[in-house]
């Protein structure tokens, strides 16, 4: 079981959280202008990173806030936690 540090509540058990998949995916500003392929890419296609992966988490059974985490998909180590509207720390990206 992972211990994840909610930016608001501090370290809590993984069971209190929900994983929200890849972070920093921007909704296209003009969806109607997109081809089917481009839309499918936005909706379905995600990276499958080996190593540091930027992903969203929600503290769903706690304060119910979303935040971002940089997690190493090999070791499960969490290298950084940052707020939902922030960019990943420089040393990571």
């Amino acid at each position, binding site marked *: *079981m992972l211990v994840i540090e909610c930016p*608001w*509540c*501090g*370290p*809590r*058990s993984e*069971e*209190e959280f929900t994983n929200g998949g890849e972070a920093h995916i921007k909704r296209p500003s003009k969806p109607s202008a997109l081809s089917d392929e481009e839309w499918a890419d936005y909706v379905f296609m995600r990276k499958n990173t080996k190593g540091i992966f930027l992903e969203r988490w929600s503290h769903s*059974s*706690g*304060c*119910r*806030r979303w935040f971002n985490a940089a997690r190493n998909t090999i070791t499960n180590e969490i290298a950084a936690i940052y707020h939902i509207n922030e960019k990943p720390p420089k040393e990571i990206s």
Partner: protein
Amino acid sequence: MVETYKRKTPLANLGLEKVSPSEQKIGKSLLMTEIPYIAKVNLRGDPAKKIFLKGVKAALNIQLPKIPNTVSGKFSEVQAIWLGPDEWLLTGRSGAEAKLLKNLQKQTENMHVAITDITDSRTIMQLSGGPALSIIMKGCTLDLHPNVFKPGQCAQTILAKTNVIIHLLKFDKKIGPTLHIYVQNSFAEHLWLWLIDAAPT
């Protein structure tokens, strides 16, 4: 709002009101009491806006806690529990919800806020006595060590697979901890029976 005469505590099935006053002494030193019908109001607003904080202060006569997972005010009067950076659970005496709503609406008029009466969504279980925290530890991953979880602190977490808010009111050297567990009505019976089951006899 539920008509008062139609109100029924979610633990009514257990016939606790016949065991006066709906409290149970478990083992030697644990006292479990349901405190139903406490007024509960969910408040959302931006604490970076001074005018919002000022309005809430005028309505409730207490400051909203800004530190995550802390509680301000008094349970016997008005209390504010931190739920999120822009969200609080306010409690007041049984029956006070209409007045709380009215005061808040008046003082935050035309502001970007959400004020919701959630009085009948949850009930409160009060646990007091030495083993209270060790019982909770049986079904909760929260760090409840006295060095970490101190009086005046609260936490939203999972207890016995149920979402709860735990508030540690005080830690008396003789009696031990006194805490409140806020649980949703539909999970109340399950949690009450689980607590009794988990308590040392």
